């Protein structure tokens, strides 16, 4: 593949063979080990995986917000927020002027725990106003008016008064709304949402998911939605990428992931979730073993020791290539084409 190929017109974000390594005393951890994915304008890409699969670190690599001991060990990340305006994020320094322009202006980010992401000693209004003033060059009064508008857009009750509240005065759901307001304050073309509903109750989660969908429909921004919850991803994503041990093992439209998964890991994960209103028998199907520790990633396909379809001499030797299918689905499995049947109709 020509790595210098220009991005297609609908492309917003493009990751090519991204690697992030952590040198540790015990050895080198390849937290992100060759991740390739893209996000088109206005679409919601769901990224699912268990803890340690590298989904959050990949997102941080996009934002150039990697922990200090991380090494960006290769790959290319490109963002094209508008026609004719393209950033090669992978070439930008963590604290460069250019990357700070991208962060607020073109990419907004929301996190799992708004209490740690928001400043506890500044009011919600101050935090939003500062961002707006910095990025949009508005004066104080205009910024405050815009901040109140934003709080209204994220359906906060009494937005004017909320501006003067501190994060600790709000409930978890309201804090998450405040953080969303902050993230969309400069009309980014991409929102990265890292487990934004994981700490919330199901009722609040449903409200936040509805809100994100509405905001996305209004503004046309794209969303990268990171979660470990397959229910949430089924609800919000247009396309889904499944990660395991630093790699994307399968990418497909949301319907294909759920009704025609081609990677054994995706199939096994989907089978192990208890579903409402479905009797799955007394025992849940499980995946044998556990996620290997990051210092001893198995050779060949990283999933092979836990895979019920693994073939000795193939899966434990050769790293499977990305297999591309006509419907846009792709899976990193030697035998992906044999799993054409749906796991559950």
């Amino acid at each position: 593949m020509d790595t210098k190929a220009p991005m297609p017109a609908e492309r917003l974000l493009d990751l090519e063979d991204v690697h992030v390594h952590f040198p540790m005393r015990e050895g080198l951890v390849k937290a992100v080990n060759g991740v390739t994915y893209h996000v088109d304008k206005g679409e919601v890409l769901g990224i699912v995986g268990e803890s340690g699969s590298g989904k959050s670190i990949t997102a941080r690599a996009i934002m150039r917000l990697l922990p200090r001991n991380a090494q960006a060990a290769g790959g290319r990340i490109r963002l094209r927020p508008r026609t004719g305006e393209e950033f090669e994020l992978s070439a930008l320094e963590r604290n460069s002027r250019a990357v700070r322009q991208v962060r607020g202006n073109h990419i907004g980010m929301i996190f799992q725990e708004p209490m740690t992401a928001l400043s506890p000693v500044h009011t919600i209004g101050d935090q939003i106003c500062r961002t707006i003033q910095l990025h949009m060059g508005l004066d104080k009064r205009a910024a405050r008016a815009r901040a109140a508008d934003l709080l209204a857009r994220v359906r906060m009750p009494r937005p004017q008064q909320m501006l003067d509240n501190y994060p600790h005065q709000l409930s978890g759901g309201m804090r998450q709304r405040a953080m969303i307001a902050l993230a969309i304050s400069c009309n980014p073309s991409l929102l990265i949402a890292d487990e934004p509903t994981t700490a919330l109750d199901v009722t609040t989660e449903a409200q936040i998911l509805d809100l994100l969908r509405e905001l996305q429909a209004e503004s046309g921004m794209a969303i990268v939605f990171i979660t470990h919850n397959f229910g949430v991803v089924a609800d919000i994503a247009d396309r889904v990428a499944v990660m395991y041990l630093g790699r994307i093992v399968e990418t497909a439209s949301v319907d294909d992931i759920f009704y025609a998964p081609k990677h054994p890991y995706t199939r096994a994960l989907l089978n192990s979730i208890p579903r409402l209103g479905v009797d799955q028998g007394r025992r849940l199907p499980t995946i044998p073993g556990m996620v290997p520790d990051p210092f001893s990633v198995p050779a060949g396909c990283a999933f092979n020791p836990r895979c019920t379809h693994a073939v000795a001499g193939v899966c434990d030797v050769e790293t499977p290539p990305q297999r591309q299918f006509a419907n846009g689905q792709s899976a990193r499995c030697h035998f992906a084409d044999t799993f054409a049947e749906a796991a559950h109709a």
Partner: protein
Amino acid sequence: MLDRANMPAMDDDTLISVRNLKKYFPIHAGWLRRQIGEVRAIDDVSLDIRKGETFGLVGESGSGKSTVARLMLRAYTLTDGSILFRRGSGEVVDISRLSERQMREMRREMQMIFQDPYSSLNPRMNLLELVGEPLVIHGVGSRGEIRDRVAELLRVVGLRPEFILRYPHAFSGGQRQRIGIARALALNPSFIAADEAVSALDVSVAAQNINLLQDLQEQFGLTYLFITHDLGMVEHIANRIGVMYLGRLMEIADTKALFSKPLHPYTEALMGSVPQPDPRGNRTRKRIKITGEIANPANPPTGCTFHPRCPYAQERCRTEVPALRPVAGRQVRCHFAEDLNLSGVAA
């Protein structure tokens, strides 16, 4: 000898019977820390748990589900109510009236598993000390016997007995949860309260641990109180379910009946809120979601505490507190349980 005449009454197949349980926490304020009010964390909760069943308790955070479990094990002192427990000997005791010392003896038969496998295990103790601690406290066995018992318990929960001298940091979240389970099993309890026991675990690990809990239940005839906010999980594991809201039980029903047709609007809303791993279903399913947030328990709404969020609320709901009453073979706290036609998640 058992004094059957003076024993509190309870059905033979019931292990625990909670009656009119109340827990009010005082609110102090001001320079003198005077009490200015109270939080009704648990208000009039009654439920029966049958021998060998899994009773699920669901609800949003702040609904009081964990407090109920803690009250049942007397980790909190209760404000009012009674908790009848049938001991292994057949004797029925009212736990709420026991002294601290008598209660310690009872805890051999009642144990708890916690959500966070990281903070609930002392990092300075190895598995022998952690799992053996209940045995030491209750003076069960010599050092050699305790070691053998711990090794056996580790095997029972699927951990290698060779790990007996290792410390918790050497284990993954799912394995730590198993250490907590082994510790809970040490004294052969009949009742285990599992408070969000798999909520912190990854999907594949949660499924393994749920299967383990079910195997142990079968093997040792355990009775579970299973507290969770994960409706899919509770539907899988529980025989009967209680739905809590703001310190009160809103509905108690058999799992199948509850999910195929909820009778309380809050139950319907909870089910409607859960996104399913089924994109087509999510697009077509009629989903009743609720607006707003759980009310402040220090200042609960009048009438039915759910009325400000209830899509079916009427004038009567604002003024009159509904009682938990039997409707169609289950218990519901709603004035209009018979009239509403609510949608569940039937298969």
